[in-house]
């Protein structure tokens, strides 16, 4: 009879395969240990990640994705300095899969690493664990030469949502690299402070359209009365993506004074934008904007039609 059920083997027995002379045999043992999903496998995998064969080390780095906690993190951090690029990269990916905040204990020391790859990976790994001790090293990393490090550092700070980091983020919002500026502006979303507001409004004038888009989008969360005027200016941006986000944010902010500027945009040929304008005109519910909506209540685009009807309903029959 062919075996019926998947087995739950003894971990020590599975680990005997790690003594195999051939790397292939050791790889198989690593795979079996990972499939066990039993934390007792962690010490064996921590040993396998220092195997003499790069293939075994890479497999062990991947296998550790199935586990969590400080011992797993320590093994992975150790592998960030591996001589083989595939092993390093596998370890870095596994590091971002950790969920247990205690795993951060093993990552924190790596946040002062002088090695660019180790530092980037450690920042990416600690981000989701939300360890407040990471704030200081992450802030320091904002001045690192490599933009990949600076982006990872912004990630850590944004997830911590700590007002004391505002200055650092605002500084990053004027970074030389567009992707860093973009990440920093998006990270400001947690703060309703004046300073965040001003930085985002300034971002609407950035030379890179994706940065302007990020600023327009984030103002929906962080904006205040002071953001309305710059957002209205952004309604005329060269990129429809930026205009769309500006419309949406004006709706979120309840900026009724923008309604008459948004109304004529219903005529534009870009369906995504028209949909958004109709929805926002409904949210703002300014009676004078009926004239812009009326012609489109039977629009050929079902989403536009739906939004226009909803908007007209909100505005009321006078």
């Amino acid at each position, binding site marked *: 009879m062919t075996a019926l059920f998947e087995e739950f083997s003894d971990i020590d027995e599975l680990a005997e395969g790690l003594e195999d002379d051939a790397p292939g*045999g050791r*790889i*198989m043992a690593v*795979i079996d240990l990972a499939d066990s999903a039993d934390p007792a496998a962690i010490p064996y995998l921590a040993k396998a990640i220092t195997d003499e064969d790069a*293939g075994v080390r890479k*497999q062990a780095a991947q296998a550790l994705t199935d586990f969590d906690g400080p011992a797993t993190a320590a093994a992975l951090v150790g592998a960030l300095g591996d001589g083989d690029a595939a092993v390093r990269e596998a370890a870095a990916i596994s590091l971002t899969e950790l969920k247990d905040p205690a795993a951060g204990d093993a990552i924190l020391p790596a946040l002062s690493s002088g090695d660019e790859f180790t530092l980037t990976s450690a920042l990416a790994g600690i981000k989701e664990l939300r360890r407040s001790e990471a704030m200081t090293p992450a802030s320091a990393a904002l001045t690192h030469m490599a933009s990949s490090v600076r982006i990872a550092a912004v990630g850590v700070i944004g997830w911590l949502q700590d007002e004391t980091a505002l200055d650092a983020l605002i500084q990053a919002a004027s970074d030389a690299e567009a992707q860093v500026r973009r990440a920093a502006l998006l990270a400001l979303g947690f703060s309703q402070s004046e300073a965040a507001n001003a930085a985002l409004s300034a971002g609407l004038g950035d030379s890179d359209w994706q940065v302007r888009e990020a600023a327009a989008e984030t103002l929906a969360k962080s904006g205040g009365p002071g953001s309305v005027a710059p957002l209205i200016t952004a309604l005329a941006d060269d990129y429809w993506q930026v205009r769309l986000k500006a419309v949406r944010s004006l709706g979120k902010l309840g900026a009724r004074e923008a309604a008459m500027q948004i109304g004529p945009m219903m005529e534009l040929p870009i369906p995504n934008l028209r949909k958004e304008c109709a929805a926002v005109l409904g949210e703002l519910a300014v009676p004078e904007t009926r004239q812009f909506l009326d012609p489109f209540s039977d629009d050929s685009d079902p989403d536009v039609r739906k939004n226009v009807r909803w908007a007209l309903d909100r505005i009321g029959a006078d």
Partner: protein
Amino acid sequence: MPLAHTATSVPVTIDDEKCIADKGCTVCVDVCPLDVLRIADLADGSKTAYMKYDECWYCQPCEADCPTGAVTVTIPYLLK
């Protein structure tokens, strides 16, 4: 009604040099949702995986999960 032996090109190929079927590895055979891969004995006494049945969805778990990078999935010729 005898059956024909019609040749067909297969989308999954295995690098015998890299394959560790010798060590008891059956990862690609295990993960194939359509169960089209098998292990063959080679003339020199070693083993390797190969595509036995031409029933492939070119979905790629065999390539993604192979521990030694021995498996390559291409698009079946009829679709190319």
